[in-house]
């Protein structure tokens, strides 16, 4: 913040292009709305409760941490709210209140503030929280167990665990259009594929996220799943199924593209996304966990500083088009 003056290069007057942290946060919330509304429509009031509690808790933790560390209060920029929103979207609608409180604590304090607040976090805060929650309270994060009391008129087994335990014979229970339209068990905001894609396209067009990352992630998932599927069609699901189920789409557009934990140059972005997609399918198909997206993204987050060293452009050197 203090060093901004170093980059001033020309004389006033300036034209502010209107982008700001809060504006960006609102765009994210707007983009997430279709999927979130679908989640609330499907799971009813409990889903709304989890969402509201998660967003408000995240903001309270942010406020408390700001006060404790004597930093300027930063809940106005909406970043904490977005973290809370994304965290809640990954949860099943039946998540108990204490799980949400503990999860947002991990997300805001350990995932973000400890590293120095917004822009300094090496991992995606929502994913740090979801990973720790998954390891601690398995039964609450198991969608089959959590959603046992729901019957929404379609096959209510979590698609990824169905394929993992019963092979591809269960695929006849799912139709690709059904999966795209949210007819699958899963997190509050992760099932409505079409809504996530619309939100993602909106963010790409507004320039808040980079298409390179999203596209290379989806390609990585597709290609890896394709080869697995060729090798053993009875055991491994086809590529489109992998893209439409689990955390794939929300990861592609909302989680993987988080600012400070993703690379900024073209080639690194492609590698980053593709490796994440490859690892996701690898963990899903031969790993111990049902959905690999969480750990795959945390792993590529770690490699982010290294990836950014690939052919960086020197600042201020001027390009041919300048």
């Amino acid at each position, binding site marked *: 913040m203090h060093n901004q003056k170093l980059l001033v290069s020309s004389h006033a007057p300036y034209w502010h292009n209107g982008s700001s942290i809060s504006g960006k946060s609102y765009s994210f919330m707007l983009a997430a709305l279709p999927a979130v509304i679908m989640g609330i429509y499907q799971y009813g009031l409990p889903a709304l409760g989890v969402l509201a509690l998660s967003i408000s808790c995240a903001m309270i933790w942010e406020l408390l941490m700001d006060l404790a560390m004597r930093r300027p209060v930063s809940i106005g920029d909406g970043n904490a709210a977005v973290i809370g929103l994304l965290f809640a979207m990954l949860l099943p609608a039946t998540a108990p209140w204490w799980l949400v409180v503990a999860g947002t604590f991990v997300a805001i304090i350990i995932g973000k503030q400890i590293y120095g607040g917004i822009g300094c976090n090496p991992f995606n805060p929502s994913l740090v929280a979801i990973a720790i929650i998954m*390891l*601690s*309270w398995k039964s609450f994060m198991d969608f089959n167990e959590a959603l046992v009391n729901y019957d929404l008129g379609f096959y209510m087994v979590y698609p990824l665990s169905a394929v993992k335990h019963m092979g591809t014979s269960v695929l006849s229970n799912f139709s690709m259009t059904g999966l795209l339209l949210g007819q699958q068990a899963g997190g509050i905001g992760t099932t409505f594929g079409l809504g996530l894609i619309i939100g993602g396209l909106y963010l790409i067009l507004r320039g808040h996220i980079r298409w390179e990352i999203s596209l290379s992630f989806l390609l990585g998932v597709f290609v890896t799943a394709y080869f697995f599927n060729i090798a053993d069609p009875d055991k491994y699901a086809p590529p489109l199924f992998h893209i439409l189920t689990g955390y794939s789409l929300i990861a592609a557009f909302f989680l993987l593209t988080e600012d400070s934990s993703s690379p900024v140059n073209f080639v690194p972005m492609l590698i980053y996304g593709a490796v994440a997609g490859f690892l996701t399918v690898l963990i899903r198909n031969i790993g111990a966990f049902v959905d690999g997206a969480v750990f795959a993204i945390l792993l590529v987050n770690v490699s982010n500083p290294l990836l950014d060293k690939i052919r960086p452009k020197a600042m201020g050197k001027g390009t041919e088009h300048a």
Partner: protein
Amino acid sequence: MAKTVVQEFTKGLWAEIPPFRLVLGLCPVLAVTKTVENGVGMGIATTFVLVCSNILISLLRNVIPKNVRIACFIVVIATFVIVVELVMQAFAYPLFLKLGIFIPLIVVNCIVLGRAEAFAAKNGVVSSFADGLGIGIGFTLSLTALSIFREVLGSGTFTIPISSVSVPVFGPSFQPFNFLVEAPGAFVCLGLMLCVMNMLGKK
């Protein structure tokens, strides 16, 4: 700047409390604090070694030649560690089974060698004793605090030292936060406690 004996003792309890202020001896701090019993047992064993080696090294500080002092310190420390190990095997075998390899590893715990080199080798017997006792008790307190934090939240129980009885702290509907008893949880807990200590100390 001559300090009184009391000051030498009390500095180990707050100003130089080992894992948090000196950030020394982290290996046992992280490894054995899964239950309160283990934490307290490890702390007491380390305190005993620390006090004994401090006294002996302080007594012998004029006899030990400078060139081979580290070797002599290690011989002294190792002797006491094996004494602790044997006594623990004889009288608290279940605790020995749990602490296992970490008891012999007190030899290389940098707190013990650090105090021998930095303090006992330069000071008199009485203040060395006070220093060893203070640092040892400080170490025990830190281990206890960390292990209470981790055990109560991570497993929902409280293991009373010596009796080895695990008492459930919360009602049966409590879901333990397993992450805290895992190794990464130890790092996170230690970091958070360091953070709180620094906030309190800054004023």
